[in-house]
């Protein structure tokens, strides 16, 4: 077994492009570390320290770095997307719980879940353009395709807020349901999906005014999304129910379910599109789901309260194509 581990470490950390493409990064939010796993061997290869309470990870617009937000140490740690090596630390980004770049790459936005504010930065140099204090636990964010508006779910107050990026002002703030968390803009740019962690499903919201267009029952504690393929299908984690639902957003119906115990949260799909990796917050594990069969095929031990999960890029990936959005969107992985 030890030989296998050393071989896997040598393989993954030995700097070969194929090996790096095999790696997965998982943020252990409650022990200030991140784990590097091997996709093929399904084992944890190494664990590295990072600032306190890291929750989410995103890719920079140039596709060269991934940024880990450390919410207690108020900083972003940059890692080279090809080698995993540390590139820089961006200080004084206060409580960067969830974050993302606008599709045009001009704006960088963070939701300070613990400290009730939304920060809008000029992405160039991470200069703060505006801080908006807003009650209700700002949770997750999404952008419109034109990079004019950022949408922020407010988990405590059950509302969804929209802010103008250029002026950093509130456009609207409306109730959408109990404990809204994960949010995505669908490719048609006309519908927002919002997961209601305090209920048993999601709502479809009009991005113009926040009006709820329809609802869909999925499972208790609907929490976060991850797209499959072109964005017609979305995976959704149901934290209380302990399931992952597969949603067809064209017909707005659930087309599959898989049981994943232990508070399933963030997800990522392997580059070959065959597996969905899901963090199991409570069990300190990452579940591997065979997408075709919709069943859990492995569960890998990691650190305490694993939250964000990210597939490291191969050297051939190059700059990110098209929009790079919040952590839990498909474009981060392209």
């Amino acid at each position: 077994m030890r030989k296998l581990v050393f071989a896997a470490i040598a393989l993954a950390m030995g700097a070969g492009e194929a090996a790096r493409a095999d790696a997965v990064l998982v943020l252990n939010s409650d022990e200030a570390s991140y784990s590097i796993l091997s996709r093929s061997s399904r084992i944890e290869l190494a664990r590295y320290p990072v600032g306190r309470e890291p929750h989410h990870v995103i890719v920079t617009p140039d596709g060269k770095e991934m940024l880990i937000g450390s919410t207690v140490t108020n900083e972003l740690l940059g890692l080279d997307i090809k080698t995993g090596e540390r590139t820089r630390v961006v200080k004084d980004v206060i409580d960067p719980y969830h974050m993302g770049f606008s599709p045009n790459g001009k704006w960088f936005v963070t939701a300070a879940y613990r400290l009730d504010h939304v920060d809008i930065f000029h992405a160039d140099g991470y200069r703060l353009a505006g801080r908006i204090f807003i009650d209700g636990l700002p949770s997750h964010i999404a952008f419109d395709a034109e990079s004019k508006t950022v949408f922020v779910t407010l988990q405590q107050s059950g509302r969804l807020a929209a802010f103008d990026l250029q002026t950093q002002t509130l456009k609207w703030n409306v109730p959408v349901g109990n404990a809204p968390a994960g949010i995505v803009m669908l490719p048609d740019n006309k519908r927002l999906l919002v997961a209601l962690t305090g209920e048993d499903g999601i709502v479809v919201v009009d991005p113009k005014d926040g009006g709820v267009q329809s609802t869909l029952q999925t499972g208790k504690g609907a929490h976060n999304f991850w797209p499959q393929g072109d964005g017609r299908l979305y995976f959704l984690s149901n934290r209380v129910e302990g399931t992952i639902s597969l949603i067809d957003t064209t017909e707005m119906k659930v087309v599959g379910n898989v049981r994943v115990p232990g508070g399933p949260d963030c997800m990522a799909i392997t580059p070959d599109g065959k597996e969905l990796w899901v963090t199991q917050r409570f069990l300190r594990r990452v579940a591997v789901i065979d997408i075709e069969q919709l069943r859990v095929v492995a569960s890998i031990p990691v650190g305490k309260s694993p939250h964000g999960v990210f597939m490291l890029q191969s050297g051939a990936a190059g700059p990110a194509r098209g929009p790079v959005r919040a952590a839990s969107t498909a474009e981060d992985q392209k």
Partner: protein
Amino acid sequence: MRDLIDIWVGLQTWIFETAVGPVLFEFGLMAWYEPGYNAVEFVMLGVVQIVVIAVGMRFFERRWPLEKSGKDDRLILVDQIYTLLNKLGIVPLAIFVVTYPLVQEIELAVRAWGFAPPRLERILPWLGDNALASFLLYFVLYDFAAYWLHRAQHAFPWWWALHSLHHSQRRMTVWTDDRNHVVDDLLITLALVLFSQLVGVQPGEYVIILMIGRLVESWSHANVDMNFGWLGNRLLVGPRFHRLHHALASPEERHIQDHNFAPVFPIWDILFGTAIYDTRNRPTGVADPAVDNDNDRGWIAQQITVFWRFARALTPKIRRATAL
């Protein structure tokens, strides 16, 4: 090791997903979902602590007692109730519900002024890459803060009115550590949580620090006649060292309780001149008969009486009116 973690976490998850999580969901308390999960671990750790105390530490008390059994043995019962209420999370839960929003508000206000508390990693960047060193340093700092808070408990009359409950016991045992008024617990918790946030203690670390610290403190209250050598007695607070802090004041030693304050590391007492190392056996308790009367009361009566004592100390007008 991983098997043990899996068993522990599996049990914690099962309890949470079966009993706690669904209740939080039904009552619309999903903002407390993660804290709720951590609370389950807190209670589980409390059970472990009770087992360690009741089986492990009690073994030493029975085998090598410093103070022999006597008529006051019955007074230990109320201290056991305190320990159960604390270790099983009932008192800490109430305190958490009060302190959590308060701490959030304080931090929000501070941030609104544009001030971000410095973290230790800013001063010592290498700490971020060394989990064990980081944990130990935070532990030492936490204990340093606890030492000064303990001194404050003795220095301010209104705080002493609360803290005197802890000292009023006549039979000092492993169960004595948790014998505190809830307002006293609340003040200490609030101060330590704020301090921990200021220096950047991770919540997970905080729980471990708290658990190890409280176990050492339970041990330091034990009725055990054991010596850990010159160095051992200066590295970690032991029963003899802390028993002196609980010693009954006498005409020759009127301020004996103003010594040996340190919760875990005696270095603070040595550095700040409050350490006394000697092997003299002294009875424990308080000289003030009004405070000593705590011993004839149960948990509820103690809480009410001591709160009244606190209110009188805090409000001179009430104190004068009572005196008249």
